């Protein structure tokens, strides 16, 4: 199927984008990497009157070191992040997650900002940002604001970014000494959206975990931070008992759903299995 007809604009500044957004409202859509948007247009599931291609906004590209944080421009492609030394050194969770995102040709084109803005509940990066307390920079007519990840993802495909706003950057605190990250997901085939996935981050002292973050994806309408499981594990040694406690707490944290690929029951089972794996991985001695 071919997309319905649309007009195309390729502005060269954020101001221009905002102007078009306010002019066209719901009729306009933003094209970044296009790896999620274009399939829906090719199926005529979305049929915008105007496609605003933001790939001309060069200042939204790139990864920079901002002292205690990394700043990632919204248009930075997955492949650049995958290969970035800065990311590998200071936000290793993101590096761990990258190979699970689709396939090379998709990662060459897809953007960090696009993935976050799309807020697909099965996507890896939103959960990683939740685990790392990343911040999302949103630019609108009233200026620039930042929202922490856990408040950014509102509901299924809904974010805190309003109609006239665009996502311009993501900031991620650099990993502190003594902290570790781990990532895993269970997908039927390599590169598929996961049936269940987890991004984990914690301070590790021998086998004791503290300041633990467990962020799940593909288990709800948004990434889910498993607060009960996290507190069940807080300050504990990773052993059978603490793992079981964390797993049991997931019953309160998660409300998984049924879909074509996986039942809610299986998702919960996988969440527990992944929790065990992550806790074990985080506490494993180097």
């Amino acid at each position: 199927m071919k997309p319905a007809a649309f007009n195309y604009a390729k502005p060269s500044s954020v101001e221009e984008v905002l102007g078009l957004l306010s002019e066209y409202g719901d009729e306009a859509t933003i094209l970044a990497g296009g790896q999620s948007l274009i399939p829906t247009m090719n199926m005529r599931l979305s049929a915008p009157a105007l496609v605003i291609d933001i790939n001309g906004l060069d200042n939204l590209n790139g990864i920079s070191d901002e002292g205690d944080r990394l700043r990632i421009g919204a248009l930075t492609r997955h492949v650049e992040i995958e290969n970035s030394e800065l990311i590998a050194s200071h936000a290793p969770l993101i590096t761990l997650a990258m190979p699970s995102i689709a396939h090379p040709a998709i990662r060459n084109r897809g953007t960090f900002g696009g993935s976050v803005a799309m807020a697909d509940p099965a996507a890896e990066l939103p959960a990683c940002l939740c685990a790392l307390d990343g911040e999302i920079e949103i630019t609108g007519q009233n200026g620039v604001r930042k929202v922490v990840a856990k408040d950014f993802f509102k509901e299924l495909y809904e974010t805190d970014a309003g109609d006239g706003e665009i996502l311009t950057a993501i900031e991620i605190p650099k990993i502190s000494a003594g902290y570790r990250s781990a990532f895993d997901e269970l997908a039927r085939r390599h590169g598929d959206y996961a049936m269940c996935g987890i991004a984990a981050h914690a301070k590790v002292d021998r086998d004791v975990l503290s300041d633990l973050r467990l962020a799940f994806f593909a288990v709800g309408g948004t990434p889910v931070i498993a607060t009960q499981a996290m507190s069940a594990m807080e300050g504990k040694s990773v052993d059978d008992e603490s793992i079981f406690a964390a797993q049991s707490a997931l019953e309160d944290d998660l409300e998984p759903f049924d879909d074509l690929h996986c039942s809610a029951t299986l998702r919960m089972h996988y969440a527990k299995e992944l929790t065990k794996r992550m806790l074990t991985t985080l506490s494993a001695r180097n």
Partner: protein
Amino acid sequence: MTNEIEQIPVALTVNGEKVSKLIEPRLSLVDFLRNELELTGSHIGCEHGVCGACTVRVNGEIVRGCLMLAVQANGGEVETIEGASDSGKIDDLQKAFHERNALQCGFCTPGMLMTTTELLATNPDPSREEIREYLSGNYCRCTGYEAIVDAIETVAQERKGA
């Protein structure tokens, strides 16, 4: 509705040749290559970015030709299987695929070759597992993949020895 659609002029380099056209914004890159330029070696298998049959190179990187608008390639450089083949730089890959029968119907083959070219450029000595992972977004219904993996492994070895 369509009356209000503004056609867009594009000028780009395709397989080393400069081309310029006036096109509808909704035209995908692969439809542009196939229909406007008659470069029919890039194939359409799904139009939702899953099968990899339309894989082409844009500004040096492989992309899904169905997930990029032709207007987005404006000013850029595009290489298709025809360009890669005629340039002679994938002779060894084509030969290895041929000798190993790493294609049957051949519909996925241009996409496989374009993907493989990038794989070997970024990882000249891949393991079988790495080859399989890199090809994980390219669907082949005929071969069962093993012969493709074998052929790529052979070329990697040969290039290493060369």
